[in-house]
């Protein structure tokens, strides 16, 4: 179908998709911890929860900058349409992330104002996640673009669908957060996470089901892609896998298989992203802009790919290394960075 199209934009699509996926997983669980914060029982429990992401959150967040700047360089049209179209939720997200970042840095350095930093951490995480969900919903719902510029109005993004995806992402990140806490903590904190996991997984599954029904119902092209033969035979594997994974997570919680739960949650998220790609490829700003329309010229894309090819592997190795270094459970005894 797309054989006569240049390949470089597709490579870039994969590179930026990878950065987005990394962001969603990595910052997803960090934000999830913030979402679960209000359910903690004590100050020391909050110390542990925060401590479990403390060493890595900044690096996790950096994937968002990499994805954003990469879009500007490789797909200026995506950058220039989505950002103004979703202006208010994006600004809200940036402001919320600032609060969360500051809370990370200063909470442990203060006793007197600790409750305020607690609030900034939880509030910042919930608001940033909700806003990201709204952005996702807004893009999926489709943007009114003409002549490569956003041509809609201020509150186009505000639909029942985007509010729904906002709430759904809060549950989604919370489940990732709980999965992470199960891996990184023990005792009471771990129990708290275990208890949260089943209802959260159920809600996540429900949300994914609703979104998968909602999008084809409101968009016939997507329905066509999923339900036409022969597509339906091999694409139905995606929902089947989702259900299998979710059921699996339920059993893993009973059997207390710590690491498997988080891994499977990550796989759930990946399947969700794959589902989105199936629905929309090659459109990057639904319903009208394809990745070839949006791409910057070959000279720009090839100039930029050199930098990515050099730096991305190094960053990946370093990231893996820092996770390795901070492996194991956080305990009150190894939290001296406070």
């Amino acid at each position, binding site marked *: 179908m797309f054989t006569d199209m240049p390949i470089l934009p597709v490579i870039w699509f994969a590179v930026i998709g990878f950065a987005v996926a990394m962001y969603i997983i990595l910052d997803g669980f960090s934000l999830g911890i913030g979402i679960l914060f209000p359910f903690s029982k004590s100050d020391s429990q909050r110390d542990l929860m925060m401590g479990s992401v403390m060493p890595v959150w900044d690096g996790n967040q*950096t994937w968002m900058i990499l994805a954003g700047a990469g879009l*500007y360089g490789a797909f200026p049209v995506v950058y220039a349409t989505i950002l*103004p179209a979703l*202006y208010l939720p994006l600004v809200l997200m940036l402001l919320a992330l*600032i609060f969360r970042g*500051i809370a990370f840095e200063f909470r442990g*350095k203060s006793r007197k104002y600790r409750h305020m930093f607690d609030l900034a951490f939880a509030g910042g995480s919930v608001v940033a996640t909700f806003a990201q969900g709204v952005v996702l919903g807004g893009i999926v719902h489709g943007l009114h673009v003409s002549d490569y510029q956003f041509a809609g109005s201020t509150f186009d993004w505000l639909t029942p669908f985007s509010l729904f995806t906002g709430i759904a992402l809060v549950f989604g990140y919370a489940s990732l957060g709980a999965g992470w806490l199960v891996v990184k903590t023990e005792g009471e904190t771990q129990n708290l996470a275990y208890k949260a996991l089943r209802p959260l997984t159920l809600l996540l599954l429900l949300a994914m089901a609703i979104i998968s029904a909602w999008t084809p119902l409101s968009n016939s092209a997507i329905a066509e892609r999923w339900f036409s033969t022969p597509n339906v035979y091999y694409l139905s594997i995606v929902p089947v896998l989702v259900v299998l994974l979710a059921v699996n997570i339920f059993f893993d919680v009973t059997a207390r298989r710590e690491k498997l739960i988080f891994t499977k949650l990550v796989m759930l998220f990946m399947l969700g992203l794959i589902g989105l790609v199936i629905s929309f490829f090659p459109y990057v700003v639904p319903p009208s802009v394809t990745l070839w329309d949006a791409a910057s010229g070959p000279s720009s894309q090839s100039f930029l790919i050199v*930098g990515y090819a050099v730096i991305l592997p*190094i960053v990946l190795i370093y990231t893996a290394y820092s996770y390795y270094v901070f492996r194991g459970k956080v305990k009150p005894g190894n939290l001296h960075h406070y």
Partner: protein
Amino acid sequence: MFGLDAVDLARFQFAFTVSYHIVFPALSIGLASFLMALEALWLKTGNEVYHGLYRFWIRIFAVGFGLGVVSGVVMAYEFGTNWSVFAQRGGDITGVLLTYEVLTAFFLEAGFLGVMLFGENRVNRTTHFLATCMVAIGTLISATWILISNSWMQTPAGYHLVDGHFLPADWFSIIFNPSFPYRFVHMVLAAFISVSFLVAGVGGYHLLRNGKDPAARKMISMAMWMAIIAVPIQIVAGDMHGLNTLRHQPAKLAAMEGHWENQPGEGVPLALVGWPDMKQERNRFSIEIPHVASLYLTHTWGGQIQSLKDFPADERPDVPLVFWTFRIMVGIGMLMLLTGVVGNYLRWRGKLFTTPLFLRWVTIFSPAGFIALIAGWVTTEAGRQPWVVYGLMRTADAHSPLSFGEMVASLTGFIVVYAIIFAIGIYYILKLIRKEPQGELPSGGPGQNNTPKRPFSATLESFDD
């Protein structure tokens, strides 16, 4: 409201957030090189005072770097949120340059910063010193990319225009566009100088409390050497930068000089002060020295430059803003020169550390560099108006299709949040600065809880008091 529209608010918001951001990278650029110098001196002489100073300043560096990252994240999105038409038409060039800046910063954060901040007792001295050098070089590379991008918008080169799109024709000419070399030298020197005067101020503050403190003495002494060497170079560089601007952006230069029209056969006067009146097209209350501007701009007694009236009214920048921010910058530059001369005279007389009046002056003067730096940027950026890409694309055509209400809401949000964060950050930095300038060893690193991914964890100082 107040005769402002959404574009004005978008401009103000961009200016506000970037002015806030630039303070921290400038601090990082200057401090990283200062730390490199301290460590080199320590390794060479074995004098522990240098080592103490290294540990003292590295904490401030860590906090400043952290705030630079937090405010930089916002910047990376603002081109799209506020200037979507520009982002789409210019993205092939500026987007690529910006991405390289972020990649460099990312790389830096991921690699050497960690060893620099936490590795002191885990790696050997040479390796640690190399890490410090790499961080210092990294901040310079980061600045290089963003300055290329900005300079290209000032003096575009190496592009071709296809349907209103700027497509790269020749990356070499894009990168080495006509104003980049001047801007780079001037900006990097500005960061060095700003940090020197900050260091001098902190030294002065501690000497006023304990006149014997060897670390405080060292700070003042080093800063005064820097002042007497770097400030004159900066003035020469600034002058060359101005001559380059005269060639490429004559309307901006005329605004900087407040030069409305040429009188036949007369040289250009230097307007020391005055209030440029855009409606009457003249300066009110001005004090002028005849011929002086001709001397430094054309190097002749009666040479003329293009005046504001040579440009249609809608191609002139906001003259009072450019005129005054330029004077603030140059004024501070002159005060710095004076401070450097007085300081070194006192050194020669052996009184550098014992003249309370001078110590008090450097303490008060310590934020001056950062003020000059912002003033310089406002001159540059406001002087480019009404163009985003000079002479080719107007700011009024570059902005996103956003409503007035959206801009008011977001601007309010940014101002409130930045005010809070700034207050917290500055409060904490001041707390660090007030400590005796002999730091304890920051420990941690791989296998420990303090980590490069979290610059702040280099400091253990409590926030409360």
